[in-house]
């Protein structure tokens, strides 16, 4: 359960990104965040992983106030979440398998377990044959699959995706969405910030619309716009 209680965020430049946001998202929900650029979608996601601290208000995940987490506990908290970005953020000097395995490595898992888990996860995103390729050798869609595999291999309960299809062609976008949808079906909460109207319309999930830092619409089984 994710709760935003009275969240406001003003950047040091004076730019008001979010104004009095109150939201709650249940476990296993699939939520689209839509709104034009600068509406506050990314800020909302960055508050969730504690990259940013709110100017006022609190963010709770499973009743834990994440603003109160001390700096050296944040990394443990982040292991419970997965991230998928528009620009993938893969490590260019590591292979697909290494990019995925690093999540388990930082958790201190042993090599055998990492290898096994990496293979399973690669199979899930359909990249078994490309495990030793470097990001530059992969297509954009394949890179995003690697990023998704990395986001879920650690057993994340929440998947945050920031325009995951923003750089992809329609066909590949659908493939990526299929994978994310499958992850959601297995019980993972998914929050997806997107501009892709087709995807939002076809999925018929909860849609939260932001405008100038405020929630202007929040409907179940909704459509884009």
């Amino acid at each position, binding site marked *: 359960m994710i709760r935003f209680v009275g969240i406001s965020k003003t950047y040091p430049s004076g730019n008001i990104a979010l104004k009095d946001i109150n939201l709650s998202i249940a476990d296993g929900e699939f939520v689209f965040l839509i709104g034009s650029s600068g509406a506050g979608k990314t800020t909302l996601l960055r508050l969730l992983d504690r990259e940013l601290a709110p100017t006022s208000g609190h963010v709770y995940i499973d009743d834990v106030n994440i603003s109160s987490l001390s700096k050296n506990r944040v990394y443990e908290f982040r292991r419970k979440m997965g991230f998928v970005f528009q620009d993938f953020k893969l490590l260019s000097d*590591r292979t697909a398998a*290494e990019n995925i395995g690093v*999540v388990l490595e930082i958790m201190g898992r042993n090599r055998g377990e*990492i290898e096994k888990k990496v293979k399973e996860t690669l199979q899930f995103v359909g990249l078994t044959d490309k495990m030793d390729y470097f990001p530059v050798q992969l297509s954009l869609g394949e890179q995003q699959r690697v990023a998704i595999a990395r986001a879920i291999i650690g057993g994340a309960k929440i998947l945050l995706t920031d325009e995951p299809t923003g750089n992809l062609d329609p066909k590949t976008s659908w493939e990526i969405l299929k994978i994310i949808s499958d992850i959601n079906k297995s019980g993972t909460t998914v929050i997806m910030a997107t501009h892709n109207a087709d995807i939002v319309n076809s999925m018929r999930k909860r849609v939260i619309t932001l405008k100038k830092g405020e929630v202007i619409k929040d409907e179940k089984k909704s459509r884009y716009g």
Partner: protein
Amino acid sequence: MTSSVSFFKRIRRTPYQALAAIFMIFVTLLVTGVFIVLALGSSSLISYFESKPQLTVFFKDEKDKESIDSLTQKLKNTQKVSTVQFISKEQALEVYKEQNKNDPLLLEMVTAEILPASLEISATSPEYLSELNDMVKKEPGVDDVVFQKDVVDTLITWTTILRKVGIVFIIFLLVATLFILLTTIGMKIALRKEEIEVLNLIGASNWYIRKPFIKEGLVYGLGGSIGASLVITLFLLYFEPFAQSFLRGIPDLTLFKLNEVTVSIWPPNMYFYILIWAVIMISGMVIGLLGSSIALSRYLKD
């Protein structure tokens, strides 16, 4: 399959920066090591001379034992000497033989006859030395008086200068080394900014992110210290024969004893080498760690 890019690979990818860092540490440690050896050597030499009879009186051949005995008694009566030791011609030959045992040619040419008898006088305090000197010089049958205070004073002056110059030099080198480490590792941190950001997002601990940079500093430090240890060892081995002729007549100079282990600087024994290596290795690692820690605190804000 391993997920981490080994730091050796990283070092290999920027060999000149790595070499600059390692070389600076090497030079710093080499100079430090040389100064440590010189400082230890000179101070143990000084304490040896200071504990030695500080006045040696050599007698002419005609001087008989009785008048030497009366001189001994006279010296003792002053209350200003701690020990007076008579060295006969025969004993002098023994000492000479011991000093030159590796040189049979020198041994052949010398008999007890041509060596002078002598008195080795230790004063209770250095300030009495010139007084004692004047006293024995007036004695008939005295050939020469060797006054070792002069030797010690010169040695102390030089050692003091050496230490000051050494410390200043080492500080300059240390500062330069830390700056080079700082820029080398700082640059690597900057180059890997995106990777660090990603690692942060996927929940890497601070230590996981810092470890490779700390390791890198440590490897630089170790690389430099291995080189410095090697070169200093070669130095010591190379200069030992020269020191041998220079320090002729000086017995073993022991630095300290620890249970069964005797660390002796002259002649340098195995434990002395181990001590020097250990000092260099530890200094190298400390410099490396210090450099990478400063770089991390400077360039990696969390």
